[in-house]
């Protein structure tokens, strides 16, 4: 069932995605693959970092930190440095990395070598979530091909730079997408996040300086090197340069991955590309950046889809996953689904998150059971406020922000739900 895939005016990451056999080295090279790596390895380390800096590329994993600056943070000198590719894509609603890895694994490997060169790292690890077994197999085959061709491993292309790449499979834990939780998990421990600082750039994997980047960020790097950082920065808008693969899911007619230039109006992504909600339905609320982002309503559909505009609208671009909820679904169901997810995934290390997620689930269940009072909504809102900023990582915040925004924006509906359940109970 081939699906029509509307594209950005200038697709970069998804340019060749439907090319048959793209996952093989032969086809990838025929499409110009590994040329950027040759170019990068001929440049010195500082020049590669400068290109990344000039591109204005911001991390595609969720935090949106400038990728060039992050690479420059690593202390230089005679020590082991590491590059870790975060392929533990677990944010509900996000499936861009899955498609990039399964269909174009060599683009990621090329990006890894370029980033490793920029950071001076001699060992790279791809931490892929355990559930992605098919994708791990594709990557394994691609890594074997790249190693045989001399593109990874000792003395790449016969030059002085060496970088080994190891594929590491996780085992099912959302928290391992958090960078320090991921590092602990990669060291063979429970995936508990660490106290920051020290940040991973200074003290990360095996206590060494570590650069951690998302799959999409690394996959973009070959294109930046190929076209030049300044040229890449012309795409998108100021502060949010380049293109982004957006995963659109939920109540839309054509869920899927769409590459857009940052700054595209959100309405265009949800309606023109993904087809909008089913016939006769209206957009009730939508998550612009995965389930952890504060929700927006139909009134916000014209917000440009970029980091700064979404921040101004009180939410975030996050992992670039739009989840659309139409008017057929009660907001309480959405809140309860999310709260249960975060309760299950909380690692339990910090009290506000461990207890806050648990209490939020119980209070939402009370509302649904008709046992709550209007005061409970205020208490629930204050629970969210007490989680934010009080934990080692942002997992608790990731529940508190969307739930807090739902209570603020749909308070009437929560109260109506509460009353109707109370009446039903009294009968």
């Amino acid at each position, binding site marked *: 069932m081939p699906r029509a895939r509307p594209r950005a005016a200038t697709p970069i990451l998804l340019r060749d995605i439907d090319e048959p056999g793209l996952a093989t080295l032969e086809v990838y090279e025929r499409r110009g693959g590994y040329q950027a790596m040759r170019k990068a390895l001929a440049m010195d380390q500082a020049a590669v970092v400068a290109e990344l800096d000039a591109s204005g590329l911001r991390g595609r994993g969720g935090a949106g930190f400038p990728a060039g600056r992050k690479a420059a943070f690593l202390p230089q000198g005679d020590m082991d440095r590491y590059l870790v590719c975060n392929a533990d894509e677990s944010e509900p*609603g996000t499936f861009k990395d899955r498609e990039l890895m399964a269909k174009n694994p060599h683009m990621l490997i090329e990006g890894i070598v370029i980033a490793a060169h920029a950071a001076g790292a001699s060992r790279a690890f791809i931490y892929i979530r355990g559930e992605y077994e098919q994708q791990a197999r594709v990557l394994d085959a691609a890594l074997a091909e790249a190693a045989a061709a001399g593109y990874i491993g000792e003395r790449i292309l016969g030059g002085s730079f060496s970088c080994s790449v190891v594929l590491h499979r996780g085992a099912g834990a959302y928290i391992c997408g958090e960078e320090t939780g991921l590092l602990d998990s990669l060291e063979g421990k429970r995936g508990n996040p660490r106290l920051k600082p020290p940040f991973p750039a200074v003290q990360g994997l*095996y206590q060494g300086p570590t650069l951690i980047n998302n799959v999409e960020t690394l996959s973009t790097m070959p294109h930046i090197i190929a076209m030049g950082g300044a040229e890449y920065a012309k795409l998108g808008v100021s502060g949010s340069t380049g293109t982004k693969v957006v995963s659109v899911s939920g109540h839309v007619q054509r869920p899927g991955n769409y590459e857009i230039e940052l700054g595209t109006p959100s309405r265009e992504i949800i309606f023109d590309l993904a087809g909008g909600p089913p016939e006769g339905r209206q957009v009730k609320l939508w998550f612009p950046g995965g389930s952890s982002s504060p929700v927006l309503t139909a009134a916000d559909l014209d917000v440009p889809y970029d980091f700064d505009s979404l921040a101004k609208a009180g939410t975030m671009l996050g992992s670039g996953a739009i989840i659309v909820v139409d008017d057929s679904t009660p907001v309480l169901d959405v809140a309860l689904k999310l709260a249960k997810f975060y309760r299950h995934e909380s690692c339990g290390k910090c009290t506000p998150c461990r207890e806050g997620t648990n209490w939020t689930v119980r209070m939402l269940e009370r509302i649904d059971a008709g046992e709550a009072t209007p005061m409970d909504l205020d208490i629930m809102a204050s629970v969210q406020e007490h989680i934010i900023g009080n934990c080692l990582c942002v997992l608790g915040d990731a529940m508190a922000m969307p739930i807090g925004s739902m209570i603020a924006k749909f308070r009437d509906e929560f109260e109506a739900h509460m009353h109707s359940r109370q009446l039903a109970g009294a009968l």
Partner: protein
Amino acid sequence: MTRVTRFAHGSRVPGWDQAADLDKDPAGVPDPALVEVPAKLRAEIEAAMALYPDRRSAALPALAAAQRVHGWCSPEAIEQVACVMRLTPAYLSSVATFYDMFELEPVGPHSVYVCTNISCSLRGADALYDAIEQAAGDDPQINLRHFECLGACDIAPMVSVDQVYYGPLELADAQRLVDDLQAGREPIPDLALSRLRCADPKANA
């Protein structure tokens, strides 16, 4: 009022009355002379350990390998991994209990993970789970689980059967999925994610 689950003596904490035996010494690193480890499993764990600067990094791949051999992270499986990796069984248990994909009790050989997170549930995943549960009945061969977002919201509602993704499923596909599994066929092959263009290079051959 909502009933809070109570365990023995009214405690809300599961397992509080099964506390560790404080008179017993903790299990140390198993003696290699006393633990029999299948040669293939040993080779797989040792190969994993060689990939990392610190051998302990191989804990996850090693436990996954042992689970493939034993079907779940049984005490024997943990002991064998501990013996090869030179770690204590307690350490490995602490790791195994953290991750969703490690089974802590015996389960059926066919894993059926139904994503019931937000995007899939908006498209009917909860009803799909119920339909599969009803179709599977109490078949001990099928390990049916609710699972958190599996990263395939484009084919929602979806399931991962033995780590292969299928979707989108209609309610009627639930019975077909179970029938195919029970007959030993590849389940609902027409709904495999790999049928979508280029998901798998071999699919285009």
